[in-house]
């Protein structure tokens, strides 16, 4: 196949180069993914530096500046309480990125060990875990997250837990599948043959080899988790007012669409840009880690 030939030729490994380094080199050449990565890093910088760069206090109301359109004083305009939208968008990046990263960390921490165990042990354990995963996957992601958030009570922390739990079955299934593929490889047989205990084979030999698909999925899952957090906050189940979050800002904006459209434009645009950036990085990572899937 001509495609394959091109890939092999361009990705010819330098002598002694590790697969991770090779993947990184491929990613660096992926211009679209790098653009996504720059945007992601920029948003992280904004979230971390929020207290330094936000022009105003995001929760301070100003009755003299209610629903003012964008101007030199307020670049993104002000909201129904006279709060600066730019400052709220900057601080809102914290809630969104935090929710994206923490909930995916929860899903990874729960899903990978369970999936690894199911795939490695097989038999009844696998059957039980797989049926339970199927059951969780049968509940649409957002509906499960809404139900969990509703039963846990509305707050950003509970929203992160709800999103994390809802995203877990995807990682269980992925880790299980990758483990099952890896455990029949020669290097695993060799590790077993050398007398390594089972847990050591799983953790030291299989786990590092199933990282690439997990990494790609985690990046894409952060994008979904950011949308999910915004959705829950939009419904009033995430970040609680007056703390700023892009989703809850959109909820309020809906009531003032005719009088103050800018209230809806900027928070939504921020969600779109950061989610797009994560998706670009995820796609790029997939191409870099597994060029056959292009």
């Amino acid at each position: 196949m001509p495609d394959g030939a091109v890939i092999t030729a361009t990705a010819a490994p330098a002598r002694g180069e590790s697969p991770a380094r090779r993947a990184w080199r491929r990613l660096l050449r992926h211009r679209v993914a790098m653009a996504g990565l720059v945007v992601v890093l920029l948003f992280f910088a904004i979230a971390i530096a929020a207290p330094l760069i936000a022009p105003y206090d995001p929760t301070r109301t100003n009755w003299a500046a209610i629903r003012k359109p964008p101007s030199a004083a307020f670049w993104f305009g002000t909201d129904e309480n006279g709060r600066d939208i730019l400052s709220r968008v900057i601080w809102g990046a914290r809630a969104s990125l935090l929710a994206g990263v923490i909930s995916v960390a929860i899903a990874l921490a729960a899903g990978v060990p369970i999936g690894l165990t199911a795939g490695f042990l097989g038999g009844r354990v696998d059957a039980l875990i797989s049926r339970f995963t199927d059951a969780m996957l049968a509940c649409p992601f957002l509906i499960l997250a809404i139900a969990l958030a509703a039963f846990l009570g509305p707050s950003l922390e509970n929203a992160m837990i709800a999103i994390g739990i809802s995203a877990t079955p995807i990682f269980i299934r992925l880790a299980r599948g990758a483990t099952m593929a890896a455990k029949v490889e020669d290097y695993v047989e060799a590790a077993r043959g050398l007398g390594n205990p089972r847990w050591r084979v799983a953790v030291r030999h299989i786990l590092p080899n199933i990282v690439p698909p997990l990494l790609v999925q985690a990046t894409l899952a952060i994008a979904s988790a950011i949308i999910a957090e915004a959705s829950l906050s939009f419904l009033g189940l995430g970040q609680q007012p007056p703390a700023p979050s892009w989703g809850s800002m959109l909820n309020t904006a809906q009531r003032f669409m005719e009088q103050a459209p800018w209230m809806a434009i900027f928070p939504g645009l921020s969600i779109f840009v950061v989610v797009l950036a994560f998706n670009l990085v995820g796609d790029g990572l997939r191409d870099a880690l597994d060029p056959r899937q292009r």
Partner: protein
Amino acid sequence: MLPFLARRVGQTIPTLLFVSVLIFGLQQLMPGDPALILAGEERGDPLVLAQIRAELNLDKPIVVQYGIWLWGVVQGDLGFSWRIREPIAGVIAQKLPVTLQLGLMAFVIALVIGIPLGIISAIRKDTPVDWGANAVGLAGLSLPNFWLGIMMILFFSVHLGWLPPSGYVPLTEDWRQSLATTIMPAFVLGSGIAAVFMRHMRSAMLQAMGQDYVRTARAKGLAEKVVILKHALRNALVPVVTLGALELGTLLSGAVLTEQVFTIPGFGKLIVDAVFNRDYPVVQGVVLVTAALYILLNLVADVLYVLINPRLRHA
């Protein structure tokens, strides 16, 4: 075909059982005592609380509670709404047609946009047309649909005044008005799925076009149009059709936000209202029905796959 169908139906039973455990378990996460919520102002009266607990079987062991609940569910009894004091199954049956109309319209929109875009993108691989189609696909996946909804209301309702910003008219009452109220939410709901279709269609088409039978068709001197439409597309559509059935599950998820934005009294709005009214049995009921629908669609998708693919029919 029959043994396959029997085996496949048999597989769904344990999944459904696990789903029921999961959904029943949600109740255990609930902060506080449900009897206190239901008693309202009479929460101080231990007699009233005891009566409510007995009515809801809360005084029985958890396994017995699950058994009673499951037995009811099997018979189509999902319990009663704490707020409107009506059987949940009835309330859901009332709202479901609204969401189904919306979902079906969204599905058609997704097909009409996603499939041709995927085909064109694959035929014109690595050209500006392909990049453009990919960009549209990626944008569709990254746009939060509730924001797209708000932006569409801003443009088409507030700015241009073409379409009503919210509300719903049933199809049976006035089909024109019904379409006018649902076209925007259906587009919003369909756009994300169109992006998924586009990506699947593109990769299925690329794979099909690299196959030997396509090369043979070309070597026979067939026109490129015939090669693409008759040979590659027919085979590429198989996985896309089955994936399409699964996307109907995603539609139900998306409907929650879309219905909220456009104030459409469907299934999605039902769960959100139930959450805010702390009407937990309705929340459970909606999740259960959604999961059951999803499992059913999964089954249909698998059967479709076998029916479409003759090689699997006798396997």
